[in-house]
């Protein structure tokens, strides 16, 4: 302690000065596009959004600590301690610096940050602040802020679509065919003039044909939060037949659209498009239960996994999303059974796996897999690759255990030397059972090491 840090205002922002900073002060530049942390000594710089205060704090403290020779293990703690010390000073100077920027720019940047936290350095283009209507929309409507964040992508989609459907492009294709060639749309250059022109009609950017419609308007007017900004670039690929004002149904539809881009044969559009929040949650819960995994409707990645699973189901359905999920679960189960039968067929008759040379664990939560068919069944139920170890268990190359602990499950592989090779829950994900099982079996497996070593010693006694 005793080291003093001083936060000083500069012409372009502020800087942190201290005798501890042997390589010079840390400068923070504040511009309309965002903040920049500059380390003059190393020449490195980090760009941040105007409102990314916590990242700013962390960046300043990280740069300060990096100039001091703390051991690697202490750095994280030192950064945390320094940020607690400097928090109030930097907060005040950051607020004062922002207050000097034009109000319009601040409002736009604040709206962008609220729509999607992050560094939106290039989103605000020249001339935007002069369009009062555009600024008002960005500040008031989340959809307008997202449109600005994805402006170039949305413009490129509209222009590509317009060109591809133009008679000139069709005529060009016909001429190209005469020369055994195909004409393709390559790069689309976008400058600020084009951005201004398109953004003045930003709702049109979300429409497939560049003309907004009733359901889309109502969706955009009440666009729910919590949607990844990039996902909204899928909206022009969809024709909404009703307004979507809740997050989960819209998220599901947008994720379906991404899958449809990758696999145009992807079906179930009607079921997906008509699903409501409650039924989606119920369906996700059913899938999670059947697979022994956790699926949260708040996590985009989980909803995406849910959509991908539904799209595996090849037959058309006319019910709701819960019915589709049930059918999908049954279909996957039947598929698994078929795969299981094939595996068992390939492996031949059920054989005993080699038992460890020591007593099996006594815990009721731990079950040793004693037969090859049990190993294969474990792989099918847990949806991981343990079935491929069936032969190895017969030869004693590994010992496999199933763990049931606190309503979670896991499979643990122990080597003949008693080391835990892997401990995985369903779909190779970590669970409470995988953590607990690893700990228990690690303790159990210690004698295996000495047992195997002593057997090696015995082997070495053989004189050839």
């Amino acid at each position: 302690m005793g080291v003093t840090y001083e936060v000083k205002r500069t012409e372009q922002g502020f800087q942190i000065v201290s005798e501890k900073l042997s390589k010079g002060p840390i400068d923070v530049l504040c511009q309309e596009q965002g903040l920049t942390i500059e380390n003059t000594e190393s020449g490195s710089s980090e760009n941040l959004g105007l409102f990314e205060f916590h990242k700013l704090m962390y960046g300043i403290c990280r740069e300060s600590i990096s100039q001091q020779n703390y051991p690697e293990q202490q750095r994280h703690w030192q950064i945390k301690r320094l940020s607690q010390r400097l928090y109030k000073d930097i907060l005040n100077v950051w607020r004062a610096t922002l207050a000097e920027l034009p109000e319009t720019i601040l409002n736009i940047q604040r709206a962008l940050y609220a729509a999607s936290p992050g560094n939106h350095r290039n989103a605000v283009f020249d001339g935007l602040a002069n369009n009062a209507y555009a600024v008002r929309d960005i500040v008031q409507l989340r959809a307008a802020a997202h449109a600005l964040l994805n402006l170039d992508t949305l413009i490129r989609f509209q222009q590509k679509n317009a060109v591809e459907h133009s008679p000139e492009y069709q005529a060009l294709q016909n001429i190209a065919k005469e020369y055994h060639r195909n004409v393709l749309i390559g790069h689309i250059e976008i400058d600020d003039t084009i951005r201004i022109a398109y953004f003045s009609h930003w709702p049109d950017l979300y429409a497939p044909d560049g003309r907004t419609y009733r359901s889309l308007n109502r969706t955009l007017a009440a666009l729910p939060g919590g949607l990844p900004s990039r996902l909204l670039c899928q909206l022009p690929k969809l024709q909404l037949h009703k307004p979507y004002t809740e997050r989960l149904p819209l998220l599901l539809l947008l994720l379906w659209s991404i899958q449809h881009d990758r696999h145009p044969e992807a079906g179930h559009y009607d079921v997906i498009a008509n699903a409501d929040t409650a039924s989606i949650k119920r369906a996700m819960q059913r899938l999670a239960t059947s697979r022994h995994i956790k699926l949260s409707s708040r996590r985009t990645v989980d909803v995406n996994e849910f959509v991908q699973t539904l799209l595996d189901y090849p037959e058309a359905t006319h019910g709701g999303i819960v019915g589709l999920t049930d059918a999908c679960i049954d279909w996957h189960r039947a598929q698994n059974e078929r795969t299981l039968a094939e595996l068992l067929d390939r492996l031949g008759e059920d054989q005993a796996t080699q038992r460890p040379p020591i007593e099996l664990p006594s815990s009721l939560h731990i079950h040793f897999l004693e037969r090859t068919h049990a190993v294969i069944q474990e792989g099918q139920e847990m949806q991981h690759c343990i079935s491929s170890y069936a032969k190895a268990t017969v030869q004693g190359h590994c010992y496999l255990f199933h763990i049931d602990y606190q309503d979670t499950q896991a499979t643990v592989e122990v080597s003949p030397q008693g080391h835990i090779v892997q401990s995985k829950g369903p779909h190779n994900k970590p669970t409470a059972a995988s953590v607990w099982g690893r700990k228990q079996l690690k303790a159990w497996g210690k004698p295996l090491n000495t047992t195997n070593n002593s057997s090696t010693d015995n082997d070495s006694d053989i004189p050839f």
Partner: protein
Amino acid sequence: MNHLNLSCRNGLLHLSRYNISCLLINQETLKSWFDSPADQAAALRIQQDFLADCPARHRQLQDSIQRHGDVSCWPLATYQMLYRMKDLHDLFINQPAVVSLCEQGNSIIPHLEQRMTADPRYQSLLKRLPANVKLTSATNTHWSTPDRHLPYIGEHWLDMLSDSGQPYPALNHLLEQLQPIAGLRTAYRHLSAFHVSSNISPLHMYMLSSIPRGDSSLRKLILNESADSLLDSYQRLQGEPTCLTDWQTFSRRIRNFGELKLPDVVDRILNGVPADEEIPF
């Protein structure tokens, strides 16, 4: 013949032991198949027997390849297809430029792109699209096999030699002048890179025959000179030309002198000034 496993199939010499073939006329490749001089001599005798017995059309085709192309790297699949196509076969024998085109089927792709982009209909439609949208194009046909590219070459060989994709009188005139001259396979590949004016003579083509098509600066240096100037420069540097190889040597000597004109280049060489790439640093 039996112990060498040599046979003749479709006008090609075939060594069944290794399942490899070459043109009947290709002595170098044939010799490379055998290690001992005795076997090589025996193989050459067998080759002569096959050549004596082979149909006249095979002989004509292979003579044409030997005169105007590169026997050692000639694509055999192209040869077999060429033998079957009567029209192209005749054209091939009579027009050395076609030999050069048949050796490299992939020249069709840039030729077609050039023709398409030069098409006035294409140009006018392109202007009606938004200026910021850039188009690209890709071929929709696989041209790599001879059954695809040979018929096209047969029909459009004159277009393919033209810079604009359309034949024109000066080009026709130059080709007629070059017809009996052998060894110009590389020179023909330059033709589509510039517009042939009445100024371009066989002497220019002699010099182009030893420089790669990508060497546009040397090509420009040569094409900027008249035939008289070329001959004058040649005579100052090397005396009287006797054969094509002399001209090829001349064009190799004047390489790498940057933007200089040919008479200045010759002056520099005569004064012992090294070319740019030879200047030691």
